[in-house]
């Protein structure tokens, strides 16, 4: 109950701040531009594909390209949405209100996380509107698209949890944002580097990167191991965030 109260305030607060609007609008603009580019190139190759008898349909062609790009763009957007979750409370001096209330630290963090999920869901929905707009003109592979949307949501959830944790570590939102972006990029680059080294390094170094586990979803496969990865990734950082806030009470 109090989780929903905290989540509601968080979500309302995010939408009251210009940051969220600018971030959502900026991400949408860039993603939209990339979507149009890929759509254009699909339209160019489509006659050849038909001529050669088959090839990938529009969903199979667009989904990996669009969502691969969206994941990269959101890598930059998410830190801006998570940075003030706890660091902002610290800075504003509002944390004592939450800590002094009959609410556990778990409830505080879950409330914050749920509020964040609200805005991340908006981001996922806004991105999904682009391929969905094509249903006006053609038939899409609904299953493949649903899978890509699911993967996208899991990806932003994992990245958001990391951002939430880093936001509990500091009272400066900018530090939280920079650290979140830094870690997400480092994980991504580590995976890329591993890819150049070949087996077994590609698997080993690529594993911690959320982007690695997004790929199967974009190729129309439901990889339960990848889904479990995202749940564990998010769970780990939510747990760390709870511990950090508990520690605040202990260390002061």
């Amino acid at each position, binding site marked *: 109950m*109090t989780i929903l*109260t*905290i989540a509601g*305030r968080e979500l309302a*607060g995010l939408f*009251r*701040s210009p940051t969220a609007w600018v971030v959502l609008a900026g991400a949408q603009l860039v993603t939209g531009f990339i979507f149009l580019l890929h759509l254009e190139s699909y339209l160019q190759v489509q006659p050849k594909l038909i001529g050669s008898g088959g090839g990938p349909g529009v969903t199979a062609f667009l989904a990996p390209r669009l969502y691969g790009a969206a994941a990269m763009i959101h890598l930059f957007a998410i830190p801006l949405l998570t940075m003030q979750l706890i660091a902002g409370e610290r800075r*504003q*001096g*509002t*944390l*004592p*209100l*939450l*800590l*002094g*209330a*009959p*609410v*556990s630290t778990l409830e505080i963090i879950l409330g914050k996380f749920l509020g964040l999920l609200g805005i991340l869901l908006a981001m996922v929905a806004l991105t999904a509107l682009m391929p969905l707009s094509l249903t006006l003109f053609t038939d899409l592979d609904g299953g493949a698209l649903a899978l890509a949307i699911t993967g996208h949501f899991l990806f932003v959830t994992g990245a958001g949890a990391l951002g939430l944790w880093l936001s509990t570590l500091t009272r400066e939102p900018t530090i939280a944002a920079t650290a979140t972006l830094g870690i997400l990029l480092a994980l991504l680059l580590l995976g890329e580097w591993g890819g150049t080294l070949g087996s077994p390094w590609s698997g080993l170094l690529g594993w911690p990167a959320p982007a690695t586990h997004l790929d199967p979803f974009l190729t129309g496969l439901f990889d339960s191991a990848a889904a479990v990865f995202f749940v564990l990734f998010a769970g780990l950082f939510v747990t760390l965030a709870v511990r950090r806030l508990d520690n605040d*009470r*202990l260390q*002061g």
Partner: protein
Amino acid sequence: MPETTPLIDATGLCRDYGALRAVDDVDLRLERGEIVGLLGQNGAGKTSTMDMLCGVLAPTAGAIAIDGVDLLESPRTAKRALGYLAEHPPLYPDMSVRGYLAFAAALHGVPRAGRGDASDRVMSLCGLKDVAHRLIGNLSKGYRQRVGIAQAIVHDPAAIVLDEPTVGLDPIQIRAIRGLIADLGREHGIILSTHILPEVQALCSRVAIMHHGRILHGGPMSAFTDDTAVDRITVTLRRAPVDSELHAIEGITGVEHLAPGRLRLTLDPTRDVPERVAEAAVHAGWGLLEMTPDRASLEQLFVELTTADTAEASA
């Protein structure tokens, strides 16, 4: 055993920050209808103590019971009986006053149906009706402080903890806030921290003086206002007698010369010494010009306690 459980009963509270012991073996009790003033210099450990009483900070050692419920064992139940205004009012600048108070009420477990009424009640109590729909970020400091107090009482807690509630306000605002605190003190128990002596004198029924993390003095404020407790008087005489003549008066324990003809007499407060001094002055023709009681003042005690310790430490 006392007949009623105290609202706040803290025993043996300690708090370490690394090697520094900020709060050292503090005992604090708050009864219903009482306003306790926690007095101390900046950095004396007042805020740490209050943070611990409200569950914001975990004590290194000690126990806290709120209305008989252990704060560390069942924080959820215990915190419901508590309202806390931290040193910096925990306000969200992007919320309206009414929205914020409803949020604070929800956090403290006020059922949905009662939140509107609870917010309206504290807004009229704290004089916030006119700014109900304004954003907190646009309010003046005085109003923000009032919103902070309103937040602490919106769930009608039995015990209220206020950390420096009047700091940074203008004299008119201070008067208004003090009036509000005095009103609240009739039904609730209040612990109030401050480094402003007149504030304690104006509001509190009991005072605890804190210094270097320890409570050096705890007692009722009546000790400072009661006429019967006079233990020193200052007299001005036209023809001062020798000290032995004064010592001959029963109940005088000390004579101190402040200026020619001006003496401070230390005396036993249980006897009517001032009356005897007056009689003696008339009989012996000392020419009594002035006689004023030197009440043991809070300021005097505060300065004595806090500077003696410093002298001791630097010695």
